[in-house]
Structure formats: structure tokens, C-alpha cells
């Protein structure tokens, strides 16, 4: 038994990579992930990637911002030091809208960025985790979990039939620490 953890098919052309995905799927070989230097339309649907849950985080952070913004205004304008401004009630709701709105979108945007960085392990001092460095440049990579799919010869053949320029057998998941 080899120590191969992941088999990477490296393609020079996105169409050939899409063809490779079809061939692997036709043979019931599960694909771990694909890495491409540019977005490719339709690849999420083909790989069955679930829609991002980032909007849920955005909603929660937005809701938090709404409450904070409103609390700030309520405390300063209506509770702590109510003032008569232009004969308005001490809690003039229409005037609360702009600030509440601004705090809502501020927290929503910052929260989304933070969530995105957190989920993708993108924070200062963290080495980026990349399975094939050329996927950030000019190659289109299909990664297959070598332990889940035992028939390595078949995978190799399918990838090469589809037009893979190179098939790698990696014993480590990520190569970017080196």
C-alpha cells in the first residue's frame, strides 16, 4: 500500500478539465475538489458544491449592527440626555434610520469579510494552504482522495485520456508549507 494521499490531475485547458470531471464521475470516482486560476461557469453545479452560507452570516451581522445602531441612538438621544430638537419627540424614528442603516451595513460588511477570512484560514502569519501551486497560475487541477478511491490505475488512465498534462501522487495534502 502506497502512502499516496491525493492524486492530482493537472490540465492546461479548462474544457479538458471539465471533460475529466465527467469521465471520473461516470466511473463513480469521487472528486475531492478542483482548483482553477479563474472562475469557471457551471463547475459548482457539476461538482455538487453547496451554495455558500455567507449570506446567513451577513444577515446575522446585519441584525447585530441594527440593534447596536438603534441602541446607540436610543441611549444618547432618548434615554441619557433627551433634547428638544425642532420640536420633535425625543425618539424621532425617521431620524434614527440613517445612522441605524449605516451601522447595519458597516457590521454586515466587516462581519462578512471576517467570516470569509476565518473560513478560508486567511489571517496574518498563516501559511496559505495550497494543494498545487500552479493552480494559482496556469493549471487546472482535479484533486482525488487516493484512500477513498482505490483503483489508482483507472484514475490515472481517465485523467490522461481527458488530456491531463501531468498526474501527481502526493503524500502530503498541502505543498505550500515547503
Amino acid at each position, binding site marked *: 500500500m502506497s502512502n499516496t494521499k491525493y492524486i492530482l490531475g493537472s490540465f492546461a485547458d479548462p474544457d479538458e478539465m471539465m471533460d475529466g470531471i465527467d469521465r471520473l464521475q461516470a466511473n463513480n470516482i469521487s472528486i475531492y475538489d478542483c482548483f482553477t486560476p479563474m472562475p469557471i*461557469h457551471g463547475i459548482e453545479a457539476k461538482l455538487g458544491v453547496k451554495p455558500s452560507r455567507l449570506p446567513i452570516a451577513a444577515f446575522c451581522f446585519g441584525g447585530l449592527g441594527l440593534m447596536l445602531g438603534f441602541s446607540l441612538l436610543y441611549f444618547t438621544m432618548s434615554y441619557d440626555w433627551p433634547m428638544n430638537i425642532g420640536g420633535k419627540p425625543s425618539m424621532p424614528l*425617521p431620524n434614527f434610520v440613517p445612522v441605524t442603516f449605516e451601522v447595519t451595513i458597516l457590521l454586515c460588511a466587516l462581519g462578512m469579510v471576517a467570516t470569509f477570512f476565518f473560513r478560508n484560514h486567511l489571517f496574518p502569519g498563516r501559511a496559505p494552504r495550497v494543494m498545487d501551486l500552479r493552480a494559482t497560475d496556469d493549471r487546472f487541477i482535479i484533486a482525488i482522495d487516493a484512500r477513498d478511491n482505490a483503483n489508482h490505475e483507472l484514475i490515472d488512465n481517465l485523467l490522461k485520456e481527458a488530456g491531463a498534462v501531468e498526474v501527481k501522487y502526493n503524500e502530503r495534502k498541502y505543498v505550500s508549507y515547503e
Partner: protein
Amino acid sequence: MGTHNHHHDYNFSEQYTFAGTAKVFSLVAIVLGIAAVAFGMLSSEHIIVERTYANLLLMGYYFTCVCAAGAFFVALQLVTQSAWSAGLIRIPQAMASILPIASLVLLLIVGLGLYTHNLYHHWHAEGLTDPNSPNYDALVAGKAAFLNVPGFLIRQILFMGTYSIFAFILAKLSYNEDLQGGLTSYKKGFKLSAIFLVIFGFTTPIWSFDTIMSLEAHWFSTMFGWYNFAAMWVSGLCVITVILILLKKAGYMAWVNENHLHDLGKLIFGFSIFWTYVWFAQFMLIYYSNIPEETVYFYKRFEPEYKLWFWLSIVINFVAPLLLLVDRDAKRKQNAMLFVAILLLCGHWLDYYIMVMPGTVDTERGFGIIEVGTAIGFCGLFTFLVMTKLSKHALAPKNHPFLDESLHHQI
């Protein structure tokens, strides 16, 4: 480098046949509209006649705005060199093509309204600008250099005439493209659109100041133009969506799919928020500063006669699209989009109603045969003209340089 290898076999020369129930219904609607307007016009009560004029102005303005939004859509797609809309561009082109007729209808209404003193009476009456007259109105007199009958009519003709010419030529260029091919029409359209958008952007606020804001000539708001533009653009997008979905349901335009609908949905959603933004900015500044000459506008709309409708307009035009279209899947479903588009079209009718009625018939407003009949009549007229125009040309611009990209649009 293409990532798609589909072979499509769409029939791009397919043409819409305007016949059967659609045609009968539109003609019946026109007849109903004429009957309702005649009923109002021939009434012995002056206020009913005035109410009819107010409704004609409302629907004439709405009709012209929707057609102008069609022209704006076409120009915007050309200037931004958009590909997604290429497959459905024939719908706004048909709307733009009938802008000349819509403009004439509005001009007739406005002209008759002025002549019979049923519209714009606030600044167009005997002695308003004469300091010795008992009717002297200092505020109107101060604005008379701009707001006078010849100036008003010249601006109406100049603005709507310019929009009509550009709209007609932009649509015509695309129809020629079908016959000649090549990039000549597209490049010409690009240049004309750039000029048109600058003219349109600077003059539509003034056009709405004249047509609608001057009904209450004492009051003014510089934001009114953008508020009207937002209403025009949202309702134009909704009409495009409704026509598109109904055509698709009838089996036409197979090349337009949920991705294109999604983009229309995003525009409707985004510009409904923009409409609210301008509406609220105008309202909030006036509410906060509380200056009598500014609050007069909202004072009228806060009277019990209008208050309910005033807030209902916000619910329909802001809360409804916000909640119904925020979900990605909703923007991709024909029935959900059709529902929201029709709801928003009703909502913007209400929006225009609240703009027009307090300044014309005030507390004598109503909602009956005249309102419903005029609205139905204009819907029929619009449907008849646009669908007749649409049936004259192929439903796809087959030589559009971005048509192929539009087919592969995916979001």
C-alpha cells in the same frame, strides 16, 4: 477559450403573432378606457372633470415614463456593452419605438389640461403674477420666469421630442442590424446612446418638475427628479419582466432563461431600494428641518384622506420587493417574478396617485370607475401598441454582436 460546447438550435427569426385573446383584451381595454374617460369628461360636476384630467395626467405620464424607461434600458445596454440582455432586448426596443406616440398622448393631455384650466391651475390662472390683482401670488410670480405656459410647452415638446427621436433611432438601428449584419449599427447605437444618456440624465428631473411637481407650484424639492426617475426605471423594468414572462409562458423566447430573469430581478430589487432611498431622503430632510414652505407637501399627504395610501405605497414599493425578492431562488422563478412585477406596477400607480391627486383634486379624490377605467384603458393602449410593434420584427436580434454571449449567460 470557451467552456461551453452546447449546440443550440434556437429559431432566432421566430416572430410573435399578436392575435386572439391578447389582442381582443387589449382592444376591449381601450374601449373601456375611452368609455370611462368620456363618462368623466361629460360629467356636469366640475370636480369630476378635473378628476378625469388628473387621472389622464397620471396614466399619460406613467405610460410615457415606461416607454422612456424602455429607451433608457436600450441605451444603457449599448453604452455598457452588456451581453446578458441581448436575447431580450427586443422587448425594451418595442417599448422605445412607441415613445413618440406616448409623448404625443401626454402632450395632448397636458395641453388640454392647461387650456381648460383643469391641470396646473395652481400656477396658470388669471392675475397670479400681477401685483395689482387680487389673485396675486408672490411665490408663483417669483417662479414665473421659468414656470410659464410657453416655456412649459416648449420644454415638454423639446424634452419628449428629443427622447422620442433617440428612442426611435436606437430601436431602428437594431432592426436594421437584422438585415445588414456587421458592427456598423451597433457602433452607431453606442455613440447615440452615450449622447442620449447625458441628455436624458440632465433633463428628466426638469421634465418631472414641470409635469408633476408644478401641480403644487408653491412647493419644490430638488430630489423630486431622481425620485421620479427611480419610479420610472423600476416600473419600466417591471413591464419588461411582465412581457418577457408572458412571452415565455406562451412558448416564445426559448433562449432567455432563469439567469436573465435573475438579472432583471436584481435590477428591480436594487432600484426599488434606490426608490425608497430617494423617497426617504426627501421625506426625512423635510420632516427634520420642519420648515413650513417645505412641509406643506407632506402635510397634505398626512391628512386622513391620504395617510393610509401614503404608507401603503411604502409597503408595496419597498417592503414587498425587499422581502419577496431578497431570496436568490425567487428571482429565478417566473411566477414569483411575475407576481412581484405586477405588484410593483400597481404600487407605482399608487405612488403616482399620491404625487398627482393632492395637488389637483385634493380632498375630492376618489377611487372608482374613472381611476380604474383610465388605468385599464392605458394598459390596453400600451399592450396593443407594444405587442403590435413586437410582432413586426424577429424576437431575437440575430446579428447582435453579443447574442451568443447572452445565450451562455450564467449567474
